[in-house]
């Protein structure tokens, strides 16, 4: 590996998850922030940069900084959907590299389950909403339909992903859904937008998370061993699936390649993979785009529960957005799980001797991707 040790993740935490009656997004973020700083062995005054992605206020980072009592030297509220937090980690590394700050706090919070709001129709959405096109599920359904048409992918292939992810959730006491499911359960669950069924879709839960990124200098005084950010890359390819250049290829084809090149790793070096699973099809497209298999081979790749506990491709070991939690934008939880795997903190779901993790966030409707390669010493 040729990547420099510039910055590391030194603290991770979730807030309360699931159904959080009476909690608001600021409380959840404060709770997660405190826990992540405790995890790092850092105090409030160590934080000199603040990152968040949100749409719950006109100026979320201002309200959040005030609520957390922070006066950061650096603030970044990049919001590219669920992949925002992978980008926040990347941007924090860049800021640290530029010598602008030493410790970045990244937070997210949502009450998506107890406080479901409506999306507003305007600007470019006005060419879609009057047709009754459901967002986001309709977009992902169209990508799935196209993949099935081009490559013969079957609903059974997608169901493999839902079942394997549930098996990981059964090993995670924080997961929202822990009852075992079968391929038949997935295939007989209610149709939402053909070909996607209920169990192809992520959960809708409340919850928050926080991640602390530190310079090499600051990481040296952290309580936990550093998880280095070895590579990072982001892109945006479109907003609506109607403008997606190829419905079967996500931006991860580009960001995966760039992040792995920066880290100096190949596919064989990667021990554990966390990819955004908003829908089962998201996982299949992402594995192909990242190059773990060829275009069109995703269905075969995930067959026979290959990505489940005990399989040879450990994937989404927290139980993912499909079974663990999904408070609107899941990307921060991918990082939290990857860091815990690399630290060896995952108990019965621990991937033995995991040294290198790949994290791939996907935001919007397959619109943005942001890839991280993380590794321990």
């Amino acid at each position, binding site marked *: 590996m040729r990547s420099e040790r510039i910055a590391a993740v030194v603290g991770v935490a979730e807030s309360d998850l699931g159904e959080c009656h009476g909690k608001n997004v600021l409380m959840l973020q404060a709770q997660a922030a405190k826990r992540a700083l405790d995890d790092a062995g850092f105090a409030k005054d160590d934080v000199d940069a603040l990152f968040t992605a949100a749409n719950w206020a006109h100026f979320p980072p201002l309200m959040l900084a005030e609520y957390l009592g922070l006066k950061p030297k650096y603030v970044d509220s990049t919001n590219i959907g669920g992949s925002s937090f992978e980008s926040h980690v990347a941007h924090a590394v860049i800021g640290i590299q530029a010598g602008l700050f030493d410790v970045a706090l990244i937070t997210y919070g949502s009450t998506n389950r107890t406080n479901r709001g409506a999306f507003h129709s305007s600007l470019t959405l006005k*060419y879609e909403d009057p047709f009754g096109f459901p967002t986001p599920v309709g977009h992902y359904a*169209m990508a799935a339909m196209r993949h099935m048409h081009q490559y013969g992918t079957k609903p059974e292939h997608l169901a493999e992903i839902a079942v394997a992810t549930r098996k990981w959730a059964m090993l995670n006491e924080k997961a929202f859904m822990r009852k075992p499911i079968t391929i038949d359960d997935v295939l007989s669950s209610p149709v939402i937008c053909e070909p996607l069924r209920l169990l192809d879709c992520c959960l809708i839960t409340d919850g928050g998370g926080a991640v602390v990124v530190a310079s090499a200098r600051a990481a040296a005084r952290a309580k936990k061993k550093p998880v280095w950010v070895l590579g990072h890359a982001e892109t945006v390819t479109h907003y609506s699936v109607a403008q997606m250049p190829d419905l079967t290829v996500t931006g991860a084809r580009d960001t995966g390649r760039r992040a792995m090149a920066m880290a100096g790793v190949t596919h064989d070096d990667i021990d554990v993979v966390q990819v955004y699973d908003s829908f089962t099809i998201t996982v299949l497209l992402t594995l192909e785009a990242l190059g773990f298999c060829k275009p069109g081979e995703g269905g075969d790749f995930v067959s026979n529960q290959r990505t489940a506990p005990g399989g040879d491709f450990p994937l989404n070991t927290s139980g993912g957005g499909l079974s663990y939690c999904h408070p609107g934008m899941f990307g921060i939880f991918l990082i939290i799980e990857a860091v815990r795997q690399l630290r060896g903190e995952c108990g019965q779901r621990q991937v033995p001797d995991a040294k290198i993790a790949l994290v791939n966030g996907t935001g919007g409707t397959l619109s943005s991707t942001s890839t991280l390669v993380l590794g321990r010493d």
Partner: protein
Amino acid sequence: MDAQFPMPPLDDDSRPFWEGAARHKLMIQRCKSCERHIFYPRFICPHCYSEEVEWVEASGRGKIHSYTVVHRAPPPFQSQVPYVVGLIELEEGVRMISRIVGPREQIAIDKAVSVVFEKVNDELTLPYFRLAE
């Protein structure tokens, strides 16, 4: 019509599209500089950044690039399920979201479609598509 129908706000970007639909014409843009067609409408050409974009009537013919049958719909459309939303690739090379009407069992990716116009209410007519003869 269901309550809260998402009426599209009219602005200078989109007015010719909606007004065209009301006259049963499918209007899209074309860049005078790079000669590529454009949809959805934009202030500048997204391919070459020329401001010389003009409105042209599309042929109304295209094919189904992808589609989904919606069984769980946003609130204003719940009484209509199941219905088919398609991603239509027009002959001019641009793609648009629309409804595909007609016998559901015959709908498939790559099949040819042509535009029809559906009056939603006094203020709005939408371009839908049906399988070509």
